[in-house]
């Protein structure tokens, strides 16, 4: 679906959207070797011909985004020397610079440690307050229900389930999506999902 919206795959449908710009981040994006963090982010501004140098304004923007994603002190370090979480944060920074208001993220929290997963999802959650909607594909149900506002699920019969809030997580919904039995636990007002064999 992401690919249809962004135009990577051509279909017979024309996709209309209210969002001024879309930012799509695939899994494990490629980055050139030996590029510094600052240079990586600056790439996005070279979309006009004859623009050989960044303006002061654009440099400030990059600094601002770097401080937002906690990478200001690593701005001259090569991207390949960053950890997986930091690279993911950097790519989200790229989205912030692009001025998009819809982020489509393909498993942004995969392949990293638990703390970094939490940090990234927290950051995305904070972005929603600034009017940036993030659509995130996730396989970790517990993380999803903690940070998500609205949920979509595709059942094994290719039907789409949709529900706002944590009411989405019922045993019957999860059974139809994953074809497995789950039970919903509740403690201190938070709910958790656990599989039952």
């Amino acid at each position: 679906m992401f690919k249809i919206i962004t135009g990577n795959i051509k279909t017979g449908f024309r996709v209309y959207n209210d969002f001024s710009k879309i930012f799509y981040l695939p899994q494990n994006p490629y980055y050139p070797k030996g590029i510094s963090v600052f240079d990586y982010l600056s790439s996005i501004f070279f979309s006009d011909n004859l623009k050989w140098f960044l303006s002061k304004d654009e440099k400030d923007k990059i600094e601002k985004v770097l401080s937002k994603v906690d990478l200001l002190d690593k701005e001259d370090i090569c991207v390949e020397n960053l950890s997986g979480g930091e690279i993911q944060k950097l790519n989200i920074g790229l989205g912030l610079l692009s001025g998009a208001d819809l982020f489509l993220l393909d498993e942004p929290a995969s392949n990293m440690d638990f703390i970094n997963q939490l940090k990234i999802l927290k950051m995305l959650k904070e972005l929603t307050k600034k009017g940036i909607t993030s659509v995130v594909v996730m396989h970790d149900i517990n993380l999803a229900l903690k940070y998500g506002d609205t949920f979509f699920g595709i059942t094994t019969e290719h039907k789409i389930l949709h529900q706002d809030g944590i009411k989405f997580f019922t045993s019957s919904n999860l059974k139809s999506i994953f074809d497995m039995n789950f039970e919903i636990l509740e403690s201190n007002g938070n709910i958790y999902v656990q599989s039952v064999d």
Partner: protein
Amino acid sequence: MKRLKTYNFVLNKKFFAFTLLVVIFFASLALCLFYRLDASNYEIILKFIRFPVVIRAIVSGATLALAGMFLQAISKNNLADPYLTGLSSGAGLGIVVSMLFFNSSHYSLFGFTGAILTAFLVIFLSGFSKFSITKLILIGLSVNLFVGSIISFFILTNPQKAYPMTLVLSGGFSSPDSSEKFLLLLFLAGIIICGVFTPILNLLRLDERIVFTSVAIRNKYNIIFVLISAFLTSISVYSIGILGFVGIICPLLSKLLFGCDARLLFFGNIISGSALLLLSTFISQNGIFPLQIPLGVVVAIVGVPFFVFFLLKEGRL
């Protein structure tokens, strides 16, 4: 404070590499022009032999390196070379046709025409709307093979001219017939077009699956860059014929030395390409004077150790 230090260090290293290349460039330029200059008729030698040779070396080195840079950047493949789009075989066919059917020795002009026509054919076949680099490479490869077999057919059916034909096809021209003024004009046009489009390469270094505006724009730029590199390579064919290797090694070398900022790489490629060719020209003409070593051979002999040295030292591409 710490930040400033690392920044300075990086700048210093790049600055040092650039100075080194500039020194090599001017040293070989001076050697090419003034080494073993016969005092009695130095005016004629300079005007008719050495200046054209130097101009050709600079033009072809710079254009090949830039064309390689563009193709490697858009295909994100370090092995892409400027003759990717069927240019070498197109130029070869042009030369063979000029020798066989027109009995003319204007190899440069015919080679140039052949190269440009083939490049357009390949780009047209790979489609303007559903353009993709993989498609371009595959079509370029097939056209290269197809035209190459036509060339072999012509060579084998004309044993009388087979030997001169293989000689001309195997390397750069030693006595090109292109006019230097026209060549410089083309070169200037090529450099200006490159300068306009070079910063866009910085945008293209991001993963192409990351989408923030539209995919169509990226495809548009890809095709512009393929056209530019085909044009640049044809200029180099017009200048000294088919010369492999420069177009692969120079972009890689400057990537090692200058990082991946396209604005730096633009100048890095121009200076490294022309320095490499000037040095090779000098060695090819004066290595075992009065005999001449074919330019292609010298380019490989000079370029490979340089490249391997920096590859082992830096270790990343």
